[in-house]
């Protein structure tokens, strides 16, 4: 029994290793792809391109402009007319335009109400809002207006709210989902397509054993990728904090990959060929990712979606992983996540056994 089980696992691993292209693609995904995702994006306004037209000809405007500095802003670019400035904004070369009117300096010196005109490209709404906030507080500090309140802000778990490690980690989590579902589904569908699966089922081996061995082989491949990626990219390139225990993350990942392989099994059950696998797995995975709370927190969703989100294993996995990495939740307090992933996985395997483990 046991030797048979491992024979199947090794056979699948070997056939994976034989395809150099496949190995290369999986390696690429777990290293470079994650690096690019982490390196590429900053959701907070950084290097905001500012342009200005200065008709006031005075020192005050220069003083205000000198407050716009890195990392939030790149050095402001001067334009000669408002038309040129708005052209640059329309062409998306500039995100914020400041226009100092003729009487700007005069009014300010006379201590009258002074207006600073701002043109803001609000295509990405939240960045626009944050940039406005920055401008407002720059003006306040410029005018030296005292606010009788002082805010002492503590960011818990990720003090400098380092976005890079966060993006890299999110990419890793969704990559795990994508790869394990597609790889597992294709392992089965390939045999279905070639007709070898029926022969497997006719052999005197328990079909469940074959199915488990085959999924385990794909889980091993993905786990290998996860470890590579943790070592080289997540901890190697980005200083991702690890406030919890490394092994509880590995354990949670193992449970999660196994239950996601169940999704792959389900896809394999309904798909007839690889083409259908590609389409089905995307159609199934997108709601899973959507319901996981990776993009919007679960509590802000429509109540109906909130209920549905209990059925996304990715939800437990993401919340669990964030807790391990950032919040440092101890192993035993993570039990809801382990159970959530395990129960969903169990259900998926039962469906998979029933649908795949019989002759067509």
């Amino acid at each position, binding site marked *: 029994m046991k030797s048979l089980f491992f024979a199947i696992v090794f056979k699948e691993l070997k056939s994976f290793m034989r395809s150099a292209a*496949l190995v290369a693609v999986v390696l690429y995904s777990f290293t470079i792809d994650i690096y690019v995702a982490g390196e590429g994006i900053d959701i907070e306004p950084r290097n905001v391109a500012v342009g200005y037209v200065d008709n006031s000809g005075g020192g005050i405007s220069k003083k205000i402009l000198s407050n716009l500095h890195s990392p939030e802003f790149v050095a402001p670019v001067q334009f000669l007319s408002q038309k040129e400035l708005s052209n640059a904004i329309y062409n998306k070369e500039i995100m914020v335009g400041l226009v100092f009117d003729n009487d700007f300096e005069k009014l300010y010196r006379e201590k009258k109400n002074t207006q600073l005109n701002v043109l803001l490209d609000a295509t*990405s709404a939240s960045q626009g809002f944050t940039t406005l906030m920055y401008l407002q507080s720059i003006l306040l500090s410029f*005018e030296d207006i005292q606010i*009788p309140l002082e805010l002492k802000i503590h960011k818990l778990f990720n003090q400098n709210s380092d976005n890079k490690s966060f993006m890299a980690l999110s990419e890793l989590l969704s990559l795990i989902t994508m790869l394990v579902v*597609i790889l597992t589904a294709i392992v089965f569908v390939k045999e279905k397509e070639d007709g070898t699966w029926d022969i497997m089922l006719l052999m005197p081996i328990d079909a469940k054993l074959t199915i488990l061995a085959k999924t385990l082989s794909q889980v091993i491949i993905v786990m290998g990728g996860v470890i590579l990626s943790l070592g080289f990219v997540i901890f190697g390139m980005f200083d991702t904090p690890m406030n919890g225990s490394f092994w509880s993350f590995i354990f949670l990942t193992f449970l999660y990959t196994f239950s996601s392989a169940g999704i792959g099994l389900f896809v394999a059950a309904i798909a007839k060929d690889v083409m259908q696998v590609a389409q089905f797995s995307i159609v199934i995975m997108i709601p899973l990712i959507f319901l996981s709370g990776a993009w919007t927190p679960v509590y802000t969703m429509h109540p109906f979606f909130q209920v549905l989100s209990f059925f996304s294993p990715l939800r437990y996995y993401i919340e669990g992983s964030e807790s391990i990495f950032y919040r440092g939740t101890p192993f035993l307090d993570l039990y809801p996540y382990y159970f959530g992933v395990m129960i969903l996985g169990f259900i998926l395997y039962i469906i998979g056994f029933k649908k795949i483990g019989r002759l067509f």
Partner: protein
Amino acid sequence: MKSFVRFSVIKAFVHKELTELVRTKLIIMVYMMPSMVTILFGYGIAMDVTHSRISIIDNDNSKYSSELISKFSHSKYFDVTLTHESEAEALEAIKKAQSDIVLIIPSSFEKNLLKGQKSELGVFIDAAFANRASTMQNYVQGVIQSAATTSAPMITLNTRTLFNQAMRDEDAIVPGLIGLVLLVAPAILTALLIVKEKEKGTIFNFYASPIGKLEFLIAKLLPVFMLHSLNIFILFIWATYLFDVPFRGSFFLYWLSSEIYILISLSIGMLISIIAKRQIVAVVLTVIITILPAFLYSGMLMPISSMQGISWVEAHIFPVMYYNHILYDTFLIGQGFDSPKIVLYLCILIGYVVALLGLGALFLKKEMR
């Protein structure tokens, strides 16, 4: 050797491919997947953080402190709970992900304010989701700043928000989703078209038949191109009617650039299909190289003008940026062909099509390897 492209041959092939797509029910997927992605993510991605759960510990219980609290309860960004827990208990709730922010008002709050002394407010924010934390921090600062500035500042900002006046998330995201979907969906479909025949062995029909290379490629790509062209209109309807995204530009430009973009996507899929030997490689490769760039370089998450270094270079290598520039223009801005930059970007997109199709024709071999 290469003769003219014979339309009767292509017609027969297209007919065969279409029949296959209909028979395998893939045609449902061609229309289901793009609409599903657009609708789910259109509703799903909110960059704005609303309803952050803020617990306020009011140690002062004075008129001023309750005024401050009411500022928070009137904001759509916060769901306020007043607690009488200790600081440690409130922090424990953040750790269990039951609350996002804890605000602590000190006991001498009103007294200090009346005396004109500074009082310190403690704010604790769950920063496990980094960007959400920064947004929440800004909102908290905004509320407190506006509550605290008693003397009106002399310089007021006269802000004109362009393109997205109401600062709606939908306006910012839905056009980007069209750019995402039209890159990923056609590519996945074509990625398998040729490699499938290789794996099954039916590619020998092509090797042995008198059909030309170019005819073969056109026959493979044309059905997918025609089917996905309809998606341009379907997605437009979702964007403008379901999500109420304004459309200010020229529809012709939208249609033209989208057709070109679909051609690019098809060619990417086709190149993968020609190079890959196994279907599994083709599927994984397509998913990896289309989905991530389509998100990163869409301008949805981060304006291209703020990118620097590697990400700036990569953004310019992938076609997503050029198409999305045109896309956002047609929806939100409306310069159309008047802008030289848009004409340039359109030419770049056409350049991509020519280059990718040329590479495909170069790599496709009409013989056994």
